[in-house]
């Protein structure tokens, strides 16, 4: 079910990103999840085409700020996937990642960014079927949410909202 129809009429000042359909960036660890995605490919497990994979050596390499930058600058969804805990090629990379991702996932909605646009999971190199399931479900979830509005102000809407904290 690929949604390649152009986005709903986005406000004028939206950049070119919006006319290309839904874009999901996937940070995949080279040893397990990238291998799992390859296995899914080799087994011809059909998947939606919204995911664009960035290969990183380990989820330990994942700085939550990569996710922040992606979601703030208009990527519609961010998927981070690595080796199952205890299976990490570098032994502890995914342990570090687990805390940082979980903290960041809880922090996102506070700033007004929908946390459903970010998902992290563990998929090993032999789990092609599981990878297909993860990608399909996450793509559908992002399609339901629609394009990421980002954090730009609608042009001309500079009304002051009182912080109500004084």
């Amino acid at each position, binding site marked *: 079910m690929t949604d390649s129809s152009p986005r709903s009429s986005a406000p004028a000042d939206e950049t070119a990103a919006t006319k290309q359909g839904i874009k999901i960036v996937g940070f995949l660890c080279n040893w397990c999840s990238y291998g799992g995605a390859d296995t899914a490919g080799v087994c011809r497990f059909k998947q939606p085409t919204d995911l664009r994979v960035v290969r990183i050596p380990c989820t330990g390499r994942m700085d939550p700020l990569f996710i922040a930058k992606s979601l703030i600058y208009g990527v519609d969804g961010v998927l981070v996937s690595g080796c199952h805990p205890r299976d990490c090629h570098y032994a502890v990379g995914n342990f570090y990642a687990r805390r940082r991702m979980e903290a960041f996932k809880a922090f996102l909605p506070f*700033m007004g960014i929908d946390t459903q646009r970010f998902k992290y999971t563990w998929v090993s190199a032999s789990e092609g079927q599981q990878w297909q399931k993860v990608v399909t479900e996450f793509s559908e979830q992002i399609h339901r949410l629609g394009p990421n509005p980002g954090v730009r102000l609608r042009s001309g809407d500079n009304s002051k909202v009182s912080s109500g904290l004084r």
Partner: protein
Amino acid sequence: MLENDRNQLHKLVEEALPELDMMIGWAESCDPLQTTPVFIRDAKSISKLTLGPFCSQNLAGYLVKPPALDAPPKPDAKPIGICVKGCDSRSLVALIQEKFITRDRVRIFGIPCRGTVDFRKVAQRVPLANVKSATMEGDSLVIDDSGTPLRLDLEEVLARKCLGCRYPNPVIQDVVIGQEAKPRSSSLAATYRDVAAMDAKPLEERLAFWQSELDRCIRCYACRNACPLCVCQDRCIVETREPRWLTQRVGIPEKFLFHFIHAMHLAGRCTGCGECERVCPMDIPVTLIKEKLNKIMEEMLGYSAGLDPEAVPPLLTFNPGETEI
């Protein structure tokens, strides 16, 4: 009561000064509602030292700003005396945890704190220009504005961070000046009341709130420079071109990303001292952002920063067993 605390401080500093490299404290300033940090090296200026609700600066930051960082203390260097309120002392503990300073590098004068005044709240009740003097009488603040003296209840003009304060008494000190203070809140919920209020709002409203607040941010980096734990200073990634995280383009995404960077770099480290919000020239509640991460750290990992000098900040370590998060 404030008077003899001040005298006790002067006496103690007088005794300790010969052994100290310098004494960092607060002194009165041109603005009656605020004090100014002071670095005392000789006995005659000890008398400048003052205490009270106007001593709002967190002096711990001066121990690690770049000059100090670049040249590590010589082995025989004399310790530095420093006055710390409850929240300031937690910053000291955090600095010790992250090995920016060693415990024997500082002689800590612990000051139990009854809350600091937020001059903006006073400004809402009386034009700042007219304020000639301000003194404490019991629990109220007496403002002389060349008219009839105005008596304000301290609670009304307290800084936001003080309303939910759990640690008014220093968590680490060599000597304590004055009686213990009673914490204003003992529960997680009370301390993070504002965070909970924000969490209760719907997503769109929160986004709108931060869009309008951060729209006013001029990226002057005062909050970063005032933060005792933000030690990168001129090497901060929001300013450097290598690596290229953030451009100098003036836009809400850039401002959002700056505050994300500051918040995530303090995740699991920030002690909620409120300096960033106090110094923000645009009145943006930036501490609220860090408080949310502090709440997450307490709820998710049961960790609150700056209490145990031996503890390791949670995002710098891991626990294989925690499968539930």
